[in-house]
């Protein structure tokens, strides 16, 4: 009996794989079809944006594939441009009920598909009624889903961005912060770095440091020094030191050296390597690290040059 069960299960698995392979081929064809539709919609939407006149799309977005194609077209336009007039986009969203479609899709999809639709939500102007659903996904077990929901939430309701990030129950990873910075670059989030650096919330502080680093805000030097001196979270101190180094600021001050000496030897070595790569001179590194620690830096810095003096002096002697 057991052997027959094994045979049936194995045969079912083989049939399952063949069906999955057919499904894969079909979904690739659908993807191609969607890409062609998105192409056409992008051209039409951009024409509407320049003429400032909203017209009907052709073909009309009245099937699921066309809805998805329209959402992807809007996502492509809005994620790669800034200063776009969103009136036309809002009108198209309302006319074709795109936000309702995407919300329904999120409910019935799982895994990468759900994450993708959440990302599309971040490009579609939608009413604040969607924030409740997006808040639910913020509590998902999967980190990708949480991040996608966060991005969608920040884009839907930018005025509450700081409150949303402050209320998160998970720590933002460098990848999450990079995605928020991308929203900033699009001009969606009205966030200033100063209140973030002053905040006691870890996520807000990490975001503030990322903003300083990405936008090269040199006047934040003093605040970074304060954070290094006073912060208790080792990750915040670590990130602040890296941010200070990205601005090319000196790291030899007493407080900074005190914090550096508390780091593990491996972290110190990593920092030394990073500073060498960032272009700090050997004398600057010797203020912070021991001679033993700067051996590597010395050899790397030397490898960017070529000594000609030795050979010349040999010739003279």
């Amino acid at each position, binding site marked *: 009996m057991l052997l027959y069960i094994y045979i049936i299960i194995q045969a079912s698995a083989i049939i399952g794989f063949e069906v999955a392979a057919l499904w894969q081929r079909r979904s690739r064809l659908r993807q191609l079809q969607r*890409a062609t539709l998105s192409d056409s919609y992008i051209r039409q939407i951009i024409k509407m944006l*320049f003429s400032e006149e909203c017209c009907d799309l052709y073909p009309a977005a009245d099937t699921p594939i066309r809805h998805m194609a329209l959402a992807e*077209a809007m996502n492509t*336009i809005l994620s790669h441009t800034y200063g776009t007039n969103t009136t036309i986009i809002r009108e198209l969203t309302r006319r074709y009920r795109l936000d309702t479609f995407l919300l329904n899709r999120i409910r019935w999809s799982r895994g990468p598909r759900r994450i993708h639709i959440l990302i599309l939500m971040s490009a579609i102007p939608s009413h604040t009624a969607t924030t409740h659903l997006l808040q639910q996904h913020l509590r998902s077990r999967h980190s990708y889903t949480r991040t996608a929901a966060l991005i969608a939430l920040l884009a839907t309701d930018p005025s509450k961005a700081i409150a949303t990030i402050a209320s998160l129950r998970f720590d933002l990873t460098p990848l999450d912060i990079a995605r928020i910075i991308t929203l900033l670059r699009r*001009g969606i989030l009205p966030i200033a770095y100063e209140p973030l650096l002053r905040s006691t919330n870890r996520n807000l502080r990490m975001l503030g440091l990322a903003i300083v680093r990405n936008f090269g805000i040199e006047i934040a030097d003093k605040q970074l020094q304060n954070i290094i001196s006073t912060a208790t979270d080792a990750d915040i101190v670590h990130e602040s030191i890296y941010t200070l180094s990205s601005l090319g600021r000196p790291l030899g001050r007493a407080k900074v050296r005190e914090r550096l000496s508390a780091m593990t030897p491996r972290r110190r070595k990593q920092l030394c390597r990073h500073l060498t790569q960032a272009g700090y001179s050997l004398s600057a590194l010797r203020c912070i690290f021991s001679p033993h620690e700067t051996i590597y830096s010395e050899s790397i810095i030397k490898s960017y040059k070529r000594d000609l003096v030795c050979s010349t002096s040999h010739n003279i002697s």
Partner: protein
Amino acid sequence: MNRGTILIYSQQRLLATLLAATIRDDNRHIIYCSSLQQLIAKSNSLRPTLIYIIDSAPFMNGANLMEMLRRSSLHRPTIYVITWQQSEHTVLSLLECGVDQYFTFPISMLRLRLKTLAHDSQ
């Protein structure tokens, strides 16, 4: 007035469409190239006035793209690069290679259209 040919190279079709739609003009012929070989062949045969490249890697990997595009001494197309990368090293490397202008995403569609118009009027 014939504003000439513009080539666009991108590995992503949708981005190329976005760019083409932004700079679209009735008197301008815009051609999309999906591979570097196609771009080089079209550049040598059609002699475009302007080439948009939505990638910085072809200039930094030793493929000698600039030499291939400007092989003919009679024809020197203007090359604009658009990419996400904002680091100083990347920007300076591209300018050193001979790229005429460098844009970063996200772009302003209006500004890009005006830039292309300004290039045509030169």
